[in-house]
């Protein structure tokens, strides 16, 4: 709701603004609290009163998390899997989205309905069979195994199709009159015209993959093949007091995506709305 000039700064407007800001601060507070706790020594962490800033600032937990665990390897795994899924998923979705949107071929409508329908199907229900499949293929504990069941995001195809549908017919026809083949039209005209969509979809696809928990958790049994999300649940040594250490691992796992978000805030928000099929 865009405020009217005459209304924006009246009393209740001011109250609402302040309430919103206070809520935002409270909302984000757990994040701050986790970060602050992770740079306190363990014995300060468990003090029975609130200390908004560490008395002794220490990075020992980070050093521990980095040296004592394989978090570096986990990062590499997460990045490799994230990039792999993103590239394959975006690429195949783009091709199919284009075909469904622009080409006429038998079974097109059926395929479209199938994709729309698969939206509703819970991936979680398939974990057992995914596990069996990936095991049969001998892909347990491999990047390919982590990636495989994540390679389908029907929503990407839906978004691509909708976008290609919206490209005015004129562009396609101009290209046809310019003697361009379908692949030329897709890669030289449609794709560059929609770079925004592609980057946006790549970002969400990467975030989804980075954040995936259940499947990577199941399909990896070796520590050195874990992704960050799964790996950090392994740092929490069962015995002893290690709150700050766990939190430092959490911060390390969350940091890349958080930074990426803060850097590309507009792009990410755009990507999210796109992924829900809304144009912002």
């Amino acid at each position, binding site marked *: 709701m865009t405020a009217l000039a005459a209304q924006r700064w009246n009393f209740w407007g001011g109250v609402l603004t302040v309430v919103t800001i206070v809520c935002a601060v409270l909302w984000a507070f757990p994040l701050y609290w986790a970060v602050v706790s992770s740079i306190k020594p*363990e*014995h300060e962490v*468990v003090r*029975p009163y609130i200390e908004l800033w560490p008395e002794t600032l220490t990075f020992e937990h980070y050093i521990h998390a980095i040296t004592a665990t394989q978090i570096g390897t986990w990062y590499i795994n997460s990045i490799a899997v994230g990039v792999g899924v993103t590239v394959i998923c975006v690429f195949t979705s783009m091709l199919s989205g284009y075909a469904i949107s622009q080409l006429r071929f038998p079974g097109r409508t059926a395929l479209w309905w199938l994709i729309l329908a698969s939206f509703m199907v819970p991936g979680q229900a398939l974990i057992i069979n995914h*596990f069996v499949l990936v*095991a049969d293929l001998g892909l*347990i*504990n491999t990047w390919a195994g982590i990636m495989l069941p994540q390679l389908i995001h029907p929503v990407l195809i839906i978004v691509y199709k909708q976008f290609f549908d919206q490209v005015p017919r004129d562009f396609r026809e101009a290209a046809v009159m310019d003697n361009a083949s379908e692949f030329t039209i897709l890669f030289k005209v449609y794709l560059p015209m929609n770079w925004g969509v592609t980057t946006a979809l790549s970002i969400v696809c990467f975030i989804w993959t980075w954040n995936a928990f259940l499947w990577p958790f*199941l399909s990896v*049994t*070796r*520590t*050195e093949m874990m992704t960050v999300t799964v790996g950090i*649940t*392994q740092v*929490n*040594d*069962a*015995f*002893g*007091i*290690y*709150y700050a250490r766990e939190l430092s691992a959490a911060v390390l796992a969350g940091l890349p995506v958080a930074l990426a978000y803060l850097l590309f805030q507009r792009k990410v928000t755009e990507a999210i709305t796109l992924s829900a099929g809304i144009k912002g």
Partner: protein
Amino acid sequence: EETVLWWDFLGGGDGVRMKQMISDFNAAHAGTIKIDATTLEWGTPFYTKVQTSAAVGEAPDVMTYHASRIPLALTQGVLDEITADDWSAMGLSQTDFAEATWDAVTSDGKQYAVPLDTHPIVLYYNRDLLKKAGVLGDDGKPTGLGSGEEFTAMLQALKDAGVQFPLGSVTASGDFMFRTIYSFMCQQGGELMTGDEFLAGDNADKLTNTLELLQQWTNDGLQSKYTDYPATVALFTSGEAAMMINGVWEVPTMTDLAGQGKLFDWGAVELPVVFDKPCTYADSHSFAIPKNRGKEMSAEKRAAVLEVISWMEKNSQFWATAGHIPAYGPVTESAEYKAMEPNATYSTLTANMIFDPKSPLAGIAGPIFDVMSTYYVPTLNGEMDPAEAVEGIKEELNAL
């Protein structure tokens, strides 16, 4: 050079010591055998991982395993037998182990693991606080270890002396409290399983008694509520809890802190006798060789694995610094071991140890665990009536 893939679930103080032993081993076997070790999260995650990876041929070459879980492991077919040839290759035999320990890894006359230690739970205490409350004996041990009334009175005395949590208990984790409860049941001569039946006869009453006592402590504010594991340790080490019932594996935490001068004067003793007779729950860390589906282990690899186990057993003197009681007889009989503190203080309890029932439903992260855990938490924190809980437990367990 053979690389032996090794999994364990040992975090915390004993984890540090195990890592030390592994690097010692690697140093001693440079060029011939190398242990490639991975530490996974203790409990359900570890055993879920073991089970699924064995099913797809991705399990390690050797792993630590709780003896209590061996019956369950056998139904799932994840363990390879330790054959007589293996035993002799390792240079170990039944005579090197206590009977109860040997029994714990044996099923149908076959062994499925090599016991490394037994690890009972003990009572840790803060001498400074106890002294302040006047409940520290001249021998440096707590007074009031003889009966339930005495123990409760001691807790009350601590409370009266201004201690916020006389007893730190892991009341947020039912699976952990299982150990204490199981011990107290045993102190009444009760057992969890009679044949295939759970809580047969008056065993249910004995469980009820136990839960009532523990709940009473909670209601009287004598023990910490909804405290998870790390919090319990933190409460104790920070001096907010005067006593704590916990596994011997926390000994290194105490010794390390004390070594750094960050801890009060502490001690550890056998569990108090709150009912009829002394009895303490214990489990055994052991080494097991997974049965990898569709994957045969080469003879060389097996030899290397056996060498690893054998070396670890024979050098388990150092493992004792992790608080555990080594299973390998020659070590515990050594004079050196007998001089170790606080191990010496609680070493008497070996006579009073009780292991989990031998059932595929028992063991760390087994079905009994989940059921018990679900009922113990509300009961211990005063949410649920003990009798009602026992009713529920009995029903659910027998339905398993």
